């Protein structure tokens, strides 16, 4: 689960991370008032959407009066912000964050994340932060410093200070940076984060240190022990389809094609997407059914595909295992098709546990599907059907 910038900053502030004072606003009036309340002579108005690259997309404006703050908010609220990370559709701006501006002398990159190959929390840091960090990291990987944390000892102050020194910091600034790292580390652990990225961590012209932008992701698998995150969940960030899928425990990602796809298993689903593309087809979605799925959940997924106007053919690939059986999938297909009608060709490839039962169930109930023999056959038939050839 992604947090908004203002949510992440509020959270980190409670752990002692220095952040500029700011107020979230959902109307231009609130934004103007926020600037007045914060005081000072310059503010930053920032669109609150879950995507990077907001600056270049016009989602971050520096203003010099509370009226200008309101105007900037007016220009953002209700629009769809399209950044390099949002896709062409962009994301609707429902809230802005108004923050006291500061004079930045240097921008540092600091992130805490899970190092997958070591199975530990690690800090990545660079003395050259800012919007171009990804390109910079690719061009000069030696400028990225890494500090891997032993979970038995936690973050050691000496290691944090050494990392600060690698970033070219000394004296009080190094101490402050080390403290900031400790705040991030504690927040990471206590909130089951999988990423806390501060970019930039700014050093102001007066020598102070502030987290100017924060991206934070918390581990979906650990949400059960953090009921407090429930109220931070922003449904506006997620499509209606994704919410519906989530309700039925299906992993769903919308794609751009016209072949509706349901697959048992994420790896196999990725493989199917690749095969369709190789054959000149394009999936409308990625939908992964978990092994513990019920026929009702499967029916809900098929219903979603049938309701998708873009979908010209549906491909169901199921590999029955020791937990999920093909006949469960077949029952789900039958439930959905009986209600919604089979108005698009459906190709089913069933293999593994319950294969014969699945084929029998669909045939007996008069559900019209085309059975495929193997993966390649299934992909070919789906691509042909979507093109109107079957």
């Amino acid at each position, binding site marked *: 689960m992604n947090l908004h910038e203002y949510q992440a900053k509020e959270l980190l502030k409670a752990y002692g991370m220095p952040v500029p004072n700011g107020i979230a606003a959902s109307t231009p009036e609130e934004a103007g008032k926020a600037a007045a309340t914060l005081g000072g002579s310059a503010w930053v108005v920032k669109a609150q959407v879950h995507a990077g690259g907001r600056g270049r997309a016009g989602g971050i404006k520096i203003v010099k009066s509370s009226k200008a703050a309101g105007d900037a908010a007016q220009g953002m609220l209700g629009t769809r912000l399209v950044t390099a990370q949002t896709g062409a559709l962009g994301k609707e701006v429902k809230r802005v964050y108004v923050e006291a501006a500061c004079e930045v002398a240097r921008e540092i990159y600091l992130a805490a994340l*899970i190092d997958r190959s070591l199975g530990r929390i690690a800090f990545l840091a660079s003395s050259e932060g800012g919007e171009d960090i990804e390109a910079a990291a690719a061009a000069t990987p030696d400028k990225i410093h890494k500090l891997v944390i032993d979970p038995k000892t936690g973050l050691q102050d000496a290691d944090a200070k050494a990392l600060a020194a690698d970033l070219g910091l000394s004296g009080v600034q190094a101490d402050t940076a080390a403290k900031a790292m400790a705040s991030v580390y504690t927040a990471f652990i206590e909130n089951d984060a999988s990423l806390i990225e501060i970019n930039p961590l700014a050093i102001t012209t007066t020598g102070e240190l502030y987290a100017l932008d924060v991206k934070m992701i918390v581990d979906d*698998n650990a949400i059960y022990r953090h009921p407090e995150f429930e109220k931070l969940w922003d449904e506006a960030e997620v499509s209606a389809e994704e919410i519906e899928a989530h309700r039925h425990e299906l992993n769903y990602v919308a794609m751009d094609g016209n072949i509706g796809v349901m697959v048992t298993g994420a*790896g196999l689903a990725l*493989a199917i997407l690749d095969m369709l593309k190789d054959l000149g087809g394009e999936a409308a979605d990625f939908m992964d059914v978990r092994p513990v799925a019920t026929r009702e959940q499967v029916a809900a997924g098929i219903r979603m595909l049938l309701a998708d106007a873009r979908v010209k053919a549906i491909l169901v690939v199921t590999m029955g295992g020791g937990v999920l059986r093909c006949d469960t999938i077949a029952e789900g297909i039958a439930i959905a098709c009986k209600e919604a009608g089979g108005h698009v060709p459906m190709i089913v490839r069933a293999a593994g546990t319950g294969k014969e039962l699945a084929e029998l169930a669909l045939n007996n109930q008069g559900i019209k599907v085309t059975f495929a023999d193997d993966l390649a056959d299934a*992909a070919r038939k789906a691509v042909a059907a979507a093109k109107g050839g079957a």
Partner: protein
Amino acid sequence: MGILIDADTKVLCQGLTGATATRLCERAIAYGTRMVGGVVPGKGGQSHLHLPVFETVAEAVRETKPDATAIFVPPANAAAAMIEAIEAELALAICVTERIPVLDMVRVKSALEGSKTRLIGPNSQGVITPDVCKIGVMPERPHTPGRVGIVSRSATLNYEAVDQTTTLHLGQSTSVGIGGDPVYGMSFIDCLKLFFADDATEGVILIGEIGGTAEEEAAEFLKTAKSKKPVVAYVAGINAPTDRRMGHAGTVDVFGEGNAAAKIEALQAAGAIIAPNAADMGTTMRKALGGR
């Protein structure tokens, strides 16, 4: 003879009395797996599937001397179950549980260091040596004893490879699911080493997917490995959008790490034979083994 498990492997099940565990252990017993007992806190002293149930792993180890444990424990308690197995010095722990918090796995990974335990998973379908022993949730039917070792992150892609190698009369020596989670136990490299040393294994199918760097690390290992056994690799997700999470597969990758193209390139450069798609893992292996 296969890797990790054999006909003599004595197996414990943590969480034995749960519905899924019960069903799968029944099937494992029918398959020939030597189940020796279960561990379920609060149910010590009972009997389930004609097996003794113990309060703790330590007690079960004392009484039944198992070589391996199958962990079917809900996510919130799974890390504690794995750590208990590690502390009881079980040689092999196979964790099937999915959706375990990743920071719990960081703790488990730390407990594994310097321990006597090999961990498979979590979020793994398990390990099977066809007609000899199975520990996990995989369907038995497509498996057949044979020449190919299979190691994968995805369970269903693993079954595809099993299905294909069975259809092509190659069969499997052992098939291993290392699991789809970001932090996990045995790696591709650990399994490749065992397969290379195993007499029954003539070639290995390695199935990767987007996210992380496990495939790149396997490629590094292959570069210096002395084995002449062919490795056929397939990596899923070459057309996946890089900015969205695709089920368990894609997770947070900063700086563009984890894309399929880089993995395929690394594996190919290291001498692996790349299967062009998921339907051709078996045929690619047959060709590599000199078949028509």
